[in-house]
């Protein structure tokens, strides 16, 4: 038997390795190509992009598009808003999720199962837009940043992930021992649980932050003032919305803007994705640990 493996094993193994590496290479190309294309297009002369001349490398290199973005107030206001919403929103998300996930992770909490059921059920039902809008309006949050933050303060999915992390990777004995020492639950959470939870916190920050950064639908509904628009709404306008059909005089001067938006499309894609991509390496090493432990036992 051992001989058999020795005889056919290595070449077989090798062939297998080659195939694996090849498939991996193909995947890398498929994933990267569109991104590289956009990068190349953003540095190219828009006319040559339109003519389909750009494949992988920029043609007629120009920084015009980025220069235009630099001078586009709307984009920068959107940028500022998005950063604000992301930072404040994520902060609230983390605190709220933590406050819910930790107690619910405690096996000694009576009523835990019932509470979990109440919480999980909300993943599958909602009262619809109108009542939600009425609620947000009743709380005086329409046309403020809070409408984008408070109604989404907890993602149930994330709550489940975090709770599972607490259950499975912080030894219960440790918590009991702390209790014996007369440590209150608040102290326990702040000085023992939190320091042990960096991976999951990193993952949560990433989840929530990406969500805030990329969201546009709630803003479309709740935000009226253009100066409160998040970046994604500005992008939507630039990337795909056809302006409302031309009423007389309505389009005076639109033409310039259109041409402009044609040429800055690609650069806008890059600029808008940059913050998330920059943030990514910092939290990246926590991913596997955090997500894994959070999910294994559902």
């Amino acid at each position, binding site marked *: 038997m051992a001989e058999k493996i020795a005889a056919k094993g290595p070449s077989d193994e090798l062939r297998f390795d080659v195939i694996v590496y090849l498939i991996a290479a193909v995947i*890398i190309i498929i994933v990267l190509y569109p991104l590289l294309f956009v990068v190349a297009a953003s540095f190219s002369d828009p006319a040559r992009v339109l003519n389909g001349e750009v494949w992988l490398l920029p043609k007629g290199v120009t920084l015009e598009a980025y220069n235009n973005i630099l001078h586009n107030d709307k984009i920068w206001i959107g940028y500022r808003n998005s950063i604000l919403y992301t930072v404040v929103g994520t902060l609230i998300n983390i605190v709220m999720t933590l406050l819910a996930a930790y107690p619910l992770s405690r096996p000694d909490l009576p009523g835990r199962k019932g509470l979990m059921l109440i919480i999980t059920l909300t993943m599958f039902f909602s009262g619809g837009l109108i009542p939600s809008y009425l609620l947000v309006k009743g709380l005086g949050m329409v046309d403020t940043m809070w409408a984008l933050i408070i109604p989404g303060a907890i993602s149930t999915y994330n709550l489940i992930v975090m709770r599972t992390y607490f259950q499975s990777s912080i030894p219960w004995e440790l918590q009991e021992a702390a209790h014996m020492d007369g440590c209150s639950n*608040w102290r326990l959470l702040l000085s023992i649980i939190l320091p042990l939870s960096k991976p999951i916190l990193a993952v949560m920050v990433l989840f929530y932050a990406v969500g805030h950064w990329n969201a546009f639908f709630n803003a479309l509904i709740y935000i009226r003032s253009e100066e409160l628009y998040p970046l994604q709404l500005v992008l939507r306008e630039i990337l795909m919305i056809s302006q409302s059909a031309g009423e007389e005089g309505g389009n005076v001067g639109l033409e310039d803007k259109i041409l402009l938006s044609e040429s800055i499309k690609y650069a806008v894609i890059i600029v808008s994705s940059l913050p998330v991509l920059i943030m990514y390496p910092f939290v990246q090493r926590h991913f596997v640990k955090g997500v894994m432990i959070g999910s294994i036992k559902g």
Partner: protein
Amino acid sequence: MKNAKIHETVVVPQFRSERGNRLLRQIAKRYDLYLMLLVPIVWYLLFHYGPLYGLQIAFKNFNPGKGILGSSWVGFEHFQRFFDSYYFGRLLWNTLSINLLSLLLAFPIPIMLALLINEIRSKSYSKLLQNITYIPHFISVVVIVGILNVMLSANGPINMLIQGLGGSSVRFMESAGWFKTIFIGSNIWQNMGWQSIIYIAGLSGINPQLYEAAKMDGASRLRRIWHVSLPGIVPVIVILLILDIGQFMNIGFEKILLMQNNLNLEASDVISTFVYTTGILKGEYSYTAAIGLFNSLINLTLLLLVNRFARKTSETSLW
């Protein structure tokens, strides 16, 4: 535990049974945990359960002037209208088929990717593959659809390639036939790496001795994947499957909306976008509330079915 003691003496009534006493004592002892839960639970009641009363407009003729409670009841009229509507069949079919196809195609691919990554021996190469496949996950839907428009436009690289190979250019984004392929394909492109993380993590938790044993038995790499790796992550697969099905009817609303146009509507008209365009843009709130409710009901039914099935067959379930 000073506080707990106080509560004990104050709260526990004499006539409680021994069990009730213990429960109350337990509760009292952990009152600060409930304190932590207070804000989140209030939030859940307010933002998730509060608006549920609004579901009644599905059975009413909602008149904004009179408010939700003051509007008149009409029973199942709106449901009837939906079931009789020309678009009912198409909406249901598109919603189900897009989601079913996603489940069939997009669900297994991250698993395969994880298995693939697990087989790569060079650590740096596997890290590279992982990190690159994660990137698209962080791009917003708006931008993704923007990229799709660009890549698949008449003068985009894909059509240039087709023309280079002697074909004639295809209007991908304006074709019903291509819609589902593009939608699901781009979903896979965007999310396979990210979704594979969980499986990779699961795979790394498998006892290496199992592989050794399989190797000793003469199992090929493929057989080892099949008999060791895959079974090792089945519980994760099941849980994720259930969670996915829980969102079955809601997948990709924003993205579909952004991709929709008259030429692909045949394939892209789904319940959630129909609710949006008819309800919010045309103000038919009651009608669309009824449709939304119908959607949720299908969703919940599916979820309960799958959860029960999973519990019976693999002893893994959501609750």
